[in-house]
C-alpha cells in the first residue's frame, strides 16, 4: 500500500506504548505571544567556527541586527547572525546551553539598545528558483526548531523522492505551548512557509498533525489551508489523540502512516519528510522577508515564574535575563529546565543563551513535577516495557547499562531508544532509567570512535611499515650500485680526492679550534657534518647525503639548543660562565660541553670492555654494517638519535647534579652509565665497521681489538672514528666538569695536546682513563691526517 492510499484512507495508527502525563499547557497558552525588553548582553554560540566555518567579524566590530557572523561553504553549515545591534566585546569560550554547560566558542555582543537592523531583501517565493530558495534558507541559518537544530536546508533537498510531507504541530510534551500559540496567531504565515517547503520538495500529500488538545490551533490551521490555493487540494490537518510522545518524528510517522522508519535510517527513505511548524514559519520569514532566524517563540512557564506565557526571544538572549524579567520567585533550590519536563535538561548554569531549538524554559516550583526520592531496586515489573514507544525492554537495558555491559545493551537495541522518558515516568522504583541510557550511549559512542581511530591507526601504521620497507630496499639497491662503483674506482685517484677533502676539513677545524675556542663546537659540528657529507658523497649520490648532512646539522643545533635550555635552569655559576660572550659563542660552549660529556661517557666504559650489553649492541651494529658500507651513515644517524634519547633520559638527574662542584661528577656518571655503555658499543661497532670495510683489515677483527685495528685502518676510516669520538666527548662533558675546563679540554684535544687533561685534575681515575682513550684516538687521527697531508 503506498503512502497516498494510506493518507486517503484517513486512518490513524496507534502509538506503541506512550503515557498520559498531566498536560499543564493552560499555564502558558492563554495569552498572546509577548515581547520582553532586550537583554544587555547576547551570547551567540559559534560551534562550527574552527571546524567548518570562518568568522567574518572580529572583536571590537559593531554589528547590526541580522548581520551574519560566520561564513562557510560546508554542507552542514548553520549560519549565525547578530540578534540585535551592538559591539562584539569578545569571541571566547562561554558556558553553552547544553546539559553539561561545557564552554563553547561564543560571540558575545554588548547590545547598544538601538536594535538597528541590516536591510532585509524581500522577495516573492514563487519567482525564485529552487537554488535561490535553498540559498536564502541557508543564509538565514534556519535549523529544525523542534529541538534537534539540524540545518533545514539539507532536509529541504532530499536525495529521495518525497511523497508525503508531515508538518509537526503535535507538541506532545507537557507545559510547552509555543507551537500552539504560533499556530493560533500566525497560521497564515506558517501555511506560506509550508508552501515554500512544498515548492522545494514537491510532495504529493501534506499532513499537518496536531494533537486533539489544541483545537484552536487546528481550527486556525484548517482555515489557513483553505485559503491557500496551492495547498488546498493536497494538504489536510490531521488531529491525533493526545498521548506522549506522539510528537517524536518516528512516532508521528507511525501514527500517520502506520510505517516504521527502519533503524538507523531517515524518514526520507520512506518518502517522508517531517518539518516543525516553527521551522515553516521561519522559512517563510527567510524567503519572503529575507530575515534571518534571529528570534523564536519560547514558552516560559512553571510555578516559580509569575508571568507564564510565550515570548519572542532573540537567539542568544541569556536565560538569566529572561528569568529576571519574568520575576523569578525566590526559592532555595531552583531548577531551570530547557525543553519540557519529559525530555528537557536541567541547566547547570543560567547564564547561557537561548538557542534556535530552545522551545521552552520550565522553572518549576519545588515538588511541582516530582519530589526527588532515592532510586530503589528494580523489581522487573515490566511497566517500562509496556510504555516504551520503541518496544524496547528498558529493564534489560538498565541492567546492562548499570553493569557497563555496553555490547549487551546494544544487543537490546539501546541505540533505538529515543530518550523520551516514558520508562522512567512509570518506574515504581523511581530509577532514572534515561540517565543510565545516556551514559551508556555516550560510552558506546566513545567506544565506536575509538574503534574507528584504532582501525585508522592500524591502516596508517601498516602503510608506514610498507613505505619504510620500500625505502630500505631502494636504499640497498642504491648502495649496492655505489659499492660496485667504488670498487671500480678504488685504484683511481678518487681515493686521494676524498682523502684530500677530509684532510681539508680536519685542518680547517683544527685551525678554528686553536684560534677561537668559543667557536669550537660550531666548527666541530660543521666539520662533523661535512665529514659525514664527504663520506657520504664518496659512497652514495649527492641527493641523499645532502639531506643527511642537513639532519646532522639540525641535530647539532638541537643539541646546542637543548643544552642551552637546561643550562639556564642550572646554577648561577654555570650560567654566568655561559652568558659571557655573544649568543653563538655561548651555544658553542654548551655544544662543546655536550660533546666532551659524550667522550667521557664513552671512555669511562671503554676500559671495561667485557661489558656484555655493550658487546651485544656492538655485534648487532656489526651485523647491520656487514651488508653494505653505505649503511654506516644510517647507523651513525641512529646512534646520534640513541644518544640524544639517552641524554634526554638522564637530563633531569644531570640537571640536579650539575652544580659546578667536581665532587658530584661521580654521581652524574652513575645514571649516565647506561648511555655511556651504549655510546661505547657504538664506537666499537664503528671501529669494527671501519676495519671490515677496509681491504687491509681482517674480517675476524674482534671488539677488543678495535683500537689495534684502527691503527691499521686507512686514513679515511680513522678520521671518521676520530670525529665520532670527539662527538662523544662533547656529550659526556654535559654531565660534569665546569665550562672553563671544558673549553680548555676541547681546545687541547683539538690541538692534539695530550700532555695534561684538566678534566683529569678534578676527576676520578676512570675519567682520566676515558680522556686518555679519547685523546689517543684523536691523536691517532691527527697523525694519520698529517701523513695524509704530507703525502
Amino acid at each position, binding site marked *: 500500500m503506498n503512502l497516498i492510499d494510506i493518507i486517503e484512507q484517513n486512518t490513524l495508527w496507534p502509538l506503541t506504548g506512550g503515557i498520559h502525563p498531566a498536560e499543564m499547557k493552560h499555564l502558558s497558552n492563554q495569552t498572546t505571544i509577548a515581547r520582553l525588553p532586550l537583554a544587555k548582553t547576547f551570547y551567540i554560540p559559534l560551534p562550527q567556527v574552527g571546524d567548518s566555518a570562518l568568522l567574518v567579524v572580529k572583536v571590537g566590530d559593531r554589528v547590526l541586527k541580522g548581520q551574519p557572523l560566520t561564513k562557510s561553504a560546508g554542507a552542514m553549515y548553520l549560519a549565525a547572525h547578530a540578534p540585535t545591534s551592538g559591539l562584539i566585546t569578545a569571541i571566547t569560550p562561554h558556558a553553552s546551553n547544553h546539559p553539561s554547560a*561545557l564552554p563553547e566558542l561564543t560571540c558575545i555582543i554588548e547590545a547598544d539598545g538601538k536594535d538597528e537592523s541590516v536591510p532585509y531583501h524581500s522577495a516573492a517565493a514563487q519567482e525564485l528558483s529552487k537554488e535561490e530558495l535553498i540559498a536564502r534558507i541557508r543564509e538565514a541559518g534556519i535549523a529544525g526548531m523542534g529541538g534537534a537544530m539540524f540545518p533545514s536546508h539539507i532536509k529541504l533537498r532530499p536525495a529521495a523522492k518525497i511523497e508525503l510531507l508531515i508538518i509537526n504541530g503535535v507538541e506532545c510534551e507537557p507545559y510547552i505551548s509555543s507551537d500552539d500559540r504560533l499556530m493560533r496567531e500566525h497560521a497564515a504565515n506558517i501555511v506560506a512557509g509550508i508552501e515554500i517547503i512544498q515548492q522545494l520538495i514537491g510532495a504529493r500529500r501534506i499532513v499537518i498533525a496536531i494533537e486533539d488538545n489544541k483545537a484552536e490551533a487546528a481550527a486556525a490551521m484548517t482555515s489557513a489551508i483553505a485559503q491557500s490555493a496551492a495547498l488546498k487540494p493536497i494538504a489536510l490537518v490531521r488531529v491525533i489523540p493526545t498521548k506522549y510522545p506522539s510528537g517524536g518524528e518516528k512516532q508521528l510517522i507511525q501514527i500517520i502512516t502506520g510505517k516504521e522508519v527502519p533503524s538507523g535510517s531517515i524518514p526520507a527513505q520512506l518518502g517522508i519528510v517531517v518539518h516543525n511548524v516553527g521551522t515553516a514559519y521561519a522559512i517563510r520569514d527567510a524567503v519572503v522577508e529575507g530575515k534571518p532566524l534571529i528570534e523564536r517563540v519560547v514558552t516560559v512557564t512553571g510555578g516559580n515564574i509569575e508571568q507564564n506565557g510565550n515570548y519572542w526571544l532573540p537567539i542568544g538572549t541569556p536565560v538569566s535575563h529572561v528569568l529576571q524579567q519574568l520575576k523569578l520567585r525566590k526559592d532555595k533550590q531552583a531548577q531551570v529546565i530547557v525543553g519540557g519536563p519529559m525530555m528537557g535538561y536541567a541547566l*547547570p548554569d543560567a547564564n547561557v543563551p537561548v538557542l534556535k531549538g530552545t522551545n521552552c524554559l520550565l522553572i518549576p516550583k519545588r515538588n511541582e513535577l516530582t519530589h526527588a526520592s532515592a532510586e530503589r531496586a528494580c523489581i522487573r515489573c515490566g511497566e517500562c516495557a509496556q510504555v516504551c514507544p520503541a518496544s524496547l525492554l528498558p529493564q534489560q537495558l538498565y541492567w546492562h547499562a548499570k553493569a557497563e555491559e555496553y555490547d549487551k545493551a546494544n544487543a537490546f537495541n539501546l541505540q533505538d531508544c529515543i530518550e523520551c522518558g516514558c520508562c522512567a515516568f512509570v518506574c515504581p522504583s523511581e530509577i532514572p532509567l534515561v540517565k543510565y541510557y545516556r551514559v551508556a550511549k555516550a560510552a558506546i559512542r566513545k567506544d565506536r570512535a575509538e574503534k574507528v581511530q584504532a*582501525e585508522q591507526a592500524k591502516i596508517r*601504521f601498516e602503510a608506514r611499515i610498507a613505505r619504510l620497507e620500500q625505502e630500505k630496499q631502494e636504499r640497498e639497491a642504491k648502495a649496492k650500485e655505489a659499492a660496485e662503483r667504488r670498487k671500480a674506482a678504488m685504484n683511481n685517484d678518487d681515493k686521494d680526492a676524498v682523502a684530500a677533502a677530509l684532510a681539508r676539513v680536519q685542518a680547517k677545524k683544527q685551525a678554528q679550534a686553536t684560534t677561537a675556542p668559543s667557536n669550537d663546537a660550531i666548527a666541530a659540528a660543521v666539520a662533523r657534518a661535512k665529514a659525514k657529507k664527504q663520506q657520504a658523497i664518496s659512497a652514495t649520490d649527492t641527493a641523499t647525503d645532502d639531506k643527511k648532512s642537513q639532519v646532522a646539522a*639540525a641535530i647539532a643545533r638541537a643539541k646546542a639548543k637543548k643544552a642551552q635550555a637546561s643550562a639556564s635552569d642550572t646554577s648561577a655559576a654555570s650560567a654566568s660562565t655561559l652568558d659571557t660572550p655573544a649568543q653563538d659563542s655561548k651555544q658553542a660552549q654548551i655544544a662543546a660541553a655536550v660533546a666532551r660529556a659524550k667522550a667521557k661517557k664513552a671512555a669511562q666504559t671503554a676500559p671495561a670492555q667485557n661489558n656484555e650489553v655493550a658487546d651485544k649492541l656492538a655485534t648487532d651494529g656489526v651485523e647491520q654494517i656487514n651488508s653494505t658500507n653505505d649503511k654506516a651513515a644510517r647507523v651513525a644517524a641512529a646512534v646520534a638519535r640513541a644518544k640524544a634519547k639517552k641524554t634526554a633520559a638522564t637530563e633531569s638527574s644531570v640537571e640536579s647534579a650539575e652544580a659546578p662542584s667536581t665532587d658530584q661528577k661521580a654521581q652524574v656518571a652513575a645514571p649516565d652509565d647506561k648511555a655511556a655503555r651504549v655510546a661505547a658499543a657504538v664506537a666499537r661497532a664503528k671501529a669494527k665497521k671501519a676495519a671490515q670495510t677496509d681491504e687491509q683489515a681482517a674480517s675476524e677483527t674482534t671488539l677488543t681489538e678495535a683500537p689495534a685495528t684502527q691503527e691499521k685502518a686507512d686514513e679515511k676510516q680513522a678520521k671518521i672514528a676520530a670525529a665520532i669520538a670527539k662527538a662523544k666527548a662533547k656529550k659526556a662533558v654535559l654531565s660534569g666538569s665546569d665550562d672553563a675546563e671544558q673549553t680548555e679540554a676541547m681546545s687541547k684535544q683539538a690541538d692534539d695536546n695530550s700532555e695534561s687533561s684538566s678534566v683529569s685534575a678534578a676527576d676520578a681515575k676512570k675519567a682520566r682513563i676515558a680522556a686518555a682513550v679519547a685523546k689517543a684516538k684523536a691523536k691517532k687521527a691527527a697523525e694519520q691526517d698529517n701523513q695524509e697531508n704530507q703525502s
Partner: protein
Amino acid sequence: MLTAVVLLTLLALVFGVILGFAAEKFRVEGNPIVDQLEALLPQTQCGQCGFPGCRPYAEAIANGEKINRCPPGGTATMEKLADLMGVEPEPLSAEAQDQTKKVAFIREEECIGCTKCIQACPVDAIVGAGKLMHTVLTVNCTGCDLCVEPCPVDCIDMIPVAQNTRSWDWRLNAIPVKTL
C-alpha cells in the same frame, strides 16, 4: 566375543570416518585468534608491550605471552583479552596509568624542525619537513608517547583531550552546582 570385537571395530571405523569428514568440512582457515586478539588491541602501535606494534603483540599472546602488557588498552582491554584467551585477568604490568586519552602537541615556536618525531611516529601523524616547524594531526594521533622522547628540545607535550559538548559523557554528578 567375536561380535563384540567386530562391533567395536565397526564403531571405531564409523566414528573415524565422521571425525575425518568433520575435520575436512569444518576446517578453520588461518589463525583467527590472532586477528581477534588484534581487533581488541587499541592499535596505538606504541610498543609499550615490548613488541613492535599491536599485531606482533597479538601474535605473541596467541603464543602464550601475558595479556597484561598493553597500558593504552587499560584494564578493559586486558579483561577482554583474558576472556578471549580463557585465562585469568591480571593487573596491568605497567604502573597504574590514568586512562584519559592524550594527544601529542608540538609547541611550535620551540620546534627546530629536526624530523625526529616524524621518524618516531608509528602512524605518520606528524607533518613537517627538515628545518621547518612540525605539527601533530590530532585526529590521527594515538597518544602513544613515542614522539616525546626523541625530541631534542622537549617541545612535545602530551595533552589530555578536552571534553566538548559532543563528546560529553553524561556524568551529571560531575557538574559543579552553580547558583543563580
